[in-house]
């Protein structure tokens, strides 16, 4: 039984780091542009399908395919920002509806291109490690480490470099930041594009672990938003922690409680956190 629990915890951590990378995008975009891009899950889907396409059909090595996939997701993000999100800054409801429209467009595009048949990518890193009775596929560990590395680097970049100070200055007081010479328009676009690139990266790793369907993104944006709020909106490292907590709660929860309510445990947890710690578990970094 202990092995099952430990195994579920490890699974939860790995899945949670995928939630975390979406949560990071949600947290950053919300802090800087005042909207939540609900289509982030679909950018993740772009990254996933692009990775599958470049490795299995175009026969590129996996790392190159990931770079292409991230670039593609970022480019799509730039287009979406310039055509749509530029006009919905600081308007949560309009941003929500525009991203819902975008979800419909992107998902039906994926359906036309790839149909509903699940796609399975060739295994990238074969084999697994075993610790006693627990076996852990190597690819899952690699994916987890990569996600943690990207989230950590983002945090480092934002807390050390000029760009990070500018971003936080903007989040605290937009007018003052503008007066100090922060290029606010470019900053907002940059954050939206970067969050899409992050989602694309998450999608690339998702492709190496699970089978692909056009609707794969829908679940992740909800979990990402939950994780971001759980940790406290604006807290970058907290996004990872929030994602992991959510992933572990779900995996372990479905062991002891009916697994049909798997998606509910995170929600109950979220409501409890919001009521008793409105700024999130680790407090927002406003």
């Amino acid at each position: 039984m202990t092995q099952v629990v430990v195994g579920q915890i490890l699974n939860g951590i790995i899945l949670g780091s995928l939630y975390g990378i979406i949560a990071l995008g949600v947290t950053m975009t919300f802090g800087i542009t005042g909207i939540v891009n609900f289509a982030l899950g679909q950018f993740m889907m772009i990254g996933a399908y692009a990775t599958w396409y470049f490795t299995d059909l175009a026969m590129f090595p996996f790392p190159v395919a990931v770079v292409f996939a991230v670039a593609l997701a970022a480019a799509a993000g730039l287009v979406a920002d310039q055509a749509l999100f530029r006009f919905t800054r600081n308007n949560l409801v309009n941003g929500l509806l525009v991203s819902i429209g975008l979800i419909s467009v992107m998902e039906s595009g994926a359906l036309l291109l790839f149909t509903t048949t699940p796609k399975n990518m060739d295994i990238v890193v074969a084999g697994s490690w075993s610790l006693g009775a627990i076996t852990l596929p190597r690819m899952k560990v690699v994916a987890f480490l990569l996600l943690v590395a990207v989230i950590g680097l983002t945090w480092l970049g934002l807390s050390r470099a000029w760009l990070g100070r500018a971003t936080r200055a903007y989040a605290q007081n937009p007018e003052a930041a503008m007066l100090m010479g922060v290029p606010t328009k470019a900053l907002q676009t940059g954050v939206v594009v970067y969050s899409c690139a992050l989602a694309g990266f998450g999608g690339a790793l998702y492709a190496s672990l699970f089978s692909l369907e056009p609707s794969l993104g829908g679940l992740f944006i909800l979990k990402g938003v939950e994780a971001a709020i759980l940790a406290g909106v604006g807290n970058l490292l907290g996004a990872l922690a929030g994602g992991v907590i959510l992933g572990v709660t779900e995996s372990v929860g479905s062991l002891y409680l009916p697994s049909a309510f798997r998606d509910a445990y995170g929600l109950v947890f979220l409501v409890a956190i919001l009521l008793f710690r409105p700024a999130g578990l680790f407090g927002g970094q406003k």
Partner: protein
Amino acid sequence: MKALWFLIPLYLLPLLVKSDVVLTVLIFTFVLGILAIGFNIVFGGAGQLTMFHAAAFGIGSYVTFLSMLRFSIPFWLGYLVAVVVVVLISIVIGWICFKFRLKEFYFAVVTLAFAELCRLVALNWTSVTNGTLGMLVLEKPTLWLPGSGVIKIEQTVPWYFLTLVSLTGVLVFSALLMRSWIGRNFSAIRLNEDLAQTLGIDTFRYKLLAFTISNVIASFAGALYGFYTGYIEPAYLAVAQSLDAIAMVLLGGVSTILGPVAGALVLTSLPHLIELPAEMRVAVYGMILILVILLMPRGIVGLAAGLFKRRAHAS
């Protein structure tokens, strides 16, 4: 209230139009319009972005039908049971949300969480709700009419009038509500909650009231919808249903009386007007939604009001 004269041609329509397709589209418009009006009271009125209205819609249809089955009572008594259930749930959820001062994004997320919990209950309480398969509704609402006694609402035309009368009633109610002191208190909260509090408005109580009224109206739409389609399923409580209603309100015009109905009309008839394969249809729907939000921020009614100088604007 002048806006309500726009409804009169709809009462005469069945005399001219015999097409079942047109009447069916209008019936769906009326029912979903009621749902949208409900959302407009809490969002366009009191400024609270709820995501719970689809859950109230679903609970309305489930509880009405289940209590009809259990207690063998007619539709309207069954709906009364649903009202009691929805009011109790709304008070509990609203009390939690407003007591802890959840606002905007956080209020939306917590109400969404509660709505998802309700959907999961409908999905997994198989012995009562029949799970994903949903339930077939063979019963029909009955009405007592002078001259013809108790009749069952079965054909398209009686359904058309039942839903149209219901819509009119809800419209009149919402117009009166928004013009009363209660509606003015809602507006005060929407425009500046801190100021409203300072002026002595019990914001907690009025937000709770707006939330409850809106959910009761949504549950009425749900009961009509379930019995008209003859089928109830957990998808009624899904996020997509909430978002559809929000899109209708924004498309038609937030905080206007007729806006939700105009939005419902466009979004319900649109799929029937464009002949396209299913995937393309969803894409076109998405694009129209995006264009409307970006190009017509005040919605159809707002645009019309701008053109006709205050003629269609009632609130």
